[in-house]
């Protein structure tokens, strides 16, 4: 195989624009899988990925295609496509020479289209614009073409039309990929450098590392070295996925594949890091490596205290495959033993929580997510705080800085008003707007990350009838007037319910939280006051009146079994309750903290 016939590309798109279906069709047409082997959306392995229509873990597939009498090797490198994983996306794009930019023929350009495009351009990739789903009855090809031309500067004749569903135009696309993707730069003789763009844990082979060999080669039995950590391992296997596993003797400059080297701990394998080999050692990393840092933290606690060990095992298993998940033990007065977990973003958090519930069957309570605050103390020290309960005493704080993001919110122009209102409510600072065309606009705001942790997505959806698409990038830290607000039940602070809020919004948030809690917490034997307080000052209060009736007024011979069943049913309902002090709290109470209105 000639290295000049290698084409490394990825497909990027906004969610639901048909990326996975298109990938499946490419696999089918190149004969990588026959019809019988096709499972829909083969690249999305996890159930949750399939259900949500998103790709979380990356995959690379090697495909063969004969074109104009020559055989080409195509490496399709899949990307997660979600903002939470933008660093991983950027590294997998760095392994490519081109990106297929997929735009839905009915929807047009959306926020993630732009975000992903910018990432691809940052990596100097050739962009192949594609209008997908042209078979849709409401496809508006001329309009979407105009957007691609006017907004993104493509030429009319560059744009490929296709349908992943029917297969129409997909061959044209494959040929366009071959024609337009530059062959990778070949440096067979240079010291070996391979870019890590993904890894996963395999019970038999240890960590399997997805790489693109940029310079030199990696062979079986080579001693490899990770430049970020200086750890060394001996290569056991190298190979590619076709998408079936195919073993090779070596991977050479320009090729994409995987290596396994009996690596036990995924944490040493960092996406973006460079691998070299000791027989042909390089000493400088490839550009663009950043250690990944969690953006959002949340406490995860088992509802049943005896499930602590199971939760620990579940998190450890998930972590085997996910270096970006951070876990450390946490103890809460209210919730007992659990873990403080760091996530790349909200979707990442959601997915992990869901997998714990679903794959491991553990009922958990997740506490209100927190961002990382930079706290400047009066003694001149700077500390990072990832939990309201780690916030130092108010007297010792000089100032608090919080992370901000810059938004891409794409909406039809008639929703500009509601979007601006929403962003102002969320303490947004207006940056600017860009018109996509006369009907659509990209609104840029600076927003505190902590505000989108709450119900921003839901609000965005409801205030734009679902027409808005949203994406963001981190823009840095800014000082804010923040305070810790505690929630008291029956006069006692429930540590797991504390939140950090902006002082000007504290009263309103406090009101909302106590009102929501009043709705959610069932009546108890005694009256339960709910208070929100800052320091010792109570800023909002509600009272749950005592339960008046829960009795089997009548119970004679014929009733005994029936009444027992009734009690058992009530008991079942209580299982999801956590007793804090004397108060029984349903697990939803912890989520209600997230809601900023009733």
């Amino acid at each position, binding site marked *: 195989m000639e290295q000049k016939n290698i084409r490394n590309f990825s497909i990027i798109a906004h969610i639901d624009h048909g990326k996975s279906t298109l990938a499946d069709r490419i696999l089918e047409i190149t004969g990588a899988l026959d019809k019988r082997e096709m499972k829909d959306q083969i690249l999305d392995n996890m159930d949750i990925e399939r259900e949500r229509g998103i790709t979380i873990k990356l995959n690379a597939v090697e495909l063969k295609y004969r074109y104009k009498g020559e055989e080409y090797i195509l490496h399709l490198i899949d990307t997660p496509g979600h903002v939470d994983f933008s660093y991983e996306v950027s590294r997998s794009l760095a392994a490519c020479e081109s990106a297929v930019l997929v735009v839905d023929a009915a929807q047009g350009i959306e926020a993630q289209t732009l975000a992903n495009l910018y990432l691809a351009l940052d990596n100097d990739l050739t962009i192949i614009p594609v209008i997908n789903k042209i078979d849709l009855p409401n496809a508006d090809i001329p309009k979407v073409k105009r957007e691609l031309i006017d907004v993104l500067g493509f030429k009319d004749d560059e744009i490929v039309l296709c349908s992943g569903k029917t297969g129409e135009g997909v061959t044209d696309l494959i040929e366009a990929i071959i024609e337009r993707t530059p062959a990778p730069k070949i440096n067979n003789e240079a010291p070996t450098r391979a870019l890590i763009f993904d890894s996963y844990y395999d019970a038999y082979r240890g960590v399997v590392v997805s790489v693109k060999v940029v310079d030199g080669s990696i062979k079986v039995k080579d001693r490899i070295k990770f430049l970020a950590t200086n750890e060394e391992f001996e290569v056991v296997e190298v190979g590619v996925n076709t998408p079936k596993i195919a073993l090779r003797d070596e991977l050479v400059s320009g090729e994409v594949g995987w290596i396994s080297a009996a690596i036990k701990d995924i944490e040493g394998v960092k996406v973006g890091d460079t691998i070299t080999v000791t027989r042909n050692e390089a000493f400088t990393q490839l550009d663009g490596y950043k250690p990944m840092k969690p953006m959002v933290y949340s406490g995860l606690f088992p509802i049943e205290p005896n499930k602590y060990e199971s939760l620990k095992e579940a998190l450890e298993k998930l972590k085997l495959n996910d270096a970006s998940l951070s876990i450390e033990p946490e103890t809460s007065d209210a919730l007992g033993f659990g873990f403080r977990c760091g996530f790349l973003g909200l979707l990442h958090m959601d997915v992990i929580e869901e997998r714990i519930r679903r794959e491991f069957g553990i009922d958990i309570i997740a506490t209100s997510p927190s961002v990382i605050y930079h706290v400047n103390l009066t003694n001149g020290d700077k500390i990072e705080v990832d939990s309201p309960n780690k916030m130092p005493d108010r007297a010792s704080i000089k100032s608090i800085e919080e992370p901000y993001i810059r938004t891409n919110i794409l909406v039809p122009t008639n929703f500009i008003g509601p979007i601006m209102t929403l962003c102002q409510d969320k303490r947004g600072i207006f940056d600017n707007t860009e018109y996509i065309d006369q009907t659509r606009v990209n609104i840029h705001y600076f927003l505190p990350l902590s505000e989108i942790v709450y119900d921003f997505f839901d609000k965005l959806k409801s205030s734009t009838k679902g027409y808005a698409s949203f994406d963001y990038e981190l823009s840095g830290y800014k000082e804010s007037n923040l305070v810790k607000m505690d929630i008291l039940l029956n006069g006692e602070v429930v540590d797991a319910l504390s939140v950090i809020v902006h002082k000007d919004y504290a009263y309103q948030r406090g009101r909302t939280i106590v009102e929501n809690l009043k709705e959610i917490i069932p009546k108890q034997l005694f009256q339960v006051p709910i208070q929100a307080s800052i320091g010792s000052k109570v800023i909002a209060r509600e009272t749950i009146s005592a339960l008046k*009736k829960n009795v089997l007024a009548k119970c004679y*011979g014929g009733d*005994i079994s029936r*009444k*027992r069943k009734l009690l058992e049913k009530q008991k079942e309902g209580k299982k999801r309750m956590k007793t804090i002090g004397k108060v029984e709290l349903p697990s939803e109470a912890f989520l209600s903290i997230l809601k900023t209105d009733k």
Partner: protein
Amino acid sequence: MACVYIHIPFCRKICSYCDFTKVLYNKDLVMPYLDKLSSEIEDSYEKEEVKTLYIGGGTPSCLSIEELGRLKQIVKSFSLAKDYEFTFECNIEDIDGDLLYELKDMGVNRLSIGIESFDKCKLEFMNRNASFPDIKGKIELVRSYGFNNINLDLMYGIPGEKISNLKKDLNLLLKLNPEHISTYSLIIEEHTMCKIRNDENILPEEELKMYNHIVSKLEKKGYIHYEISNFAKPGYESKHNLTYWNNEEYYGFGLGATGYIKGFRYSNTKSIDEYLLGNFKDEENLVSKTEMMENEVMLGLRKMEGIDLQKFFDKYEVNLQDVFPVKPLVRNKELVYKNGHIFINPKYIYVMNEILLKLI
């Protein structure tokens, strides 16, 4: 020693709230039913001495004199203990000299009469009928036949009912000077007229007020509040019903009846056709020791005096507090420990399920 319940499912009229096993009175069915009842009893009754006998329904008092005669024959098959209690449920309208004569002859020594209310609106809601002067006359008649242990039922919490309606009902009831009073708030059960027409309970706050009023009023009048819904003059507590609350065994005979014998809880078929074919039992389960102890708690705590810890130990050879998390609840004053008994703090009796849920 045995306790026996016998179910007579026939009614002349169906009350809107009733979810007991019942069928409209049909002359052609009664005698065959009584024949089957007799054979059911013969099949399983082992001639133990009977301490309490309770004939309920349905409406046992709606039977004709001839039918009552057949029932009397059946009852004769039981060997009654010396100090037996024999209760017979009566509908107030059915009461007359002939009926009372038959009951007396049968050996009945306690009557349970469903009065429920004297209030026209409440009665209309319940699909019942009666007036205070009539009732008063009937009760006098009952007394003249020498019945001196009478229970009267009273219902409250009927939609639209105010505390003033209840007070009036209760005052009239007290004028009849019954030895025993059972009071129930309306429960809207599945498959009742109330459920079908979508009746709704009054607010729990209101209901609790009514309950508290009943308790304080009756206690003032010298009644002992001995179970959540039951009050008696000293010495007139229902021995039969205490069997249930003490989690003791009892026979249940007749359509839809349930029983608890030799460690098994069973329920009879609710289908009159099946019953007449002689297919009596519908379900039968051996009660595990855990379940038995849980039942002991669930039922025992219904009594205001609660559970006798020594008796519990004698019966199960284990301390109640070692099996159930009693201590934190005593600490919270949800349960009270006194004179070797554990009972629900009377303050929480109307929310006692919450406490049970923490215990079992």
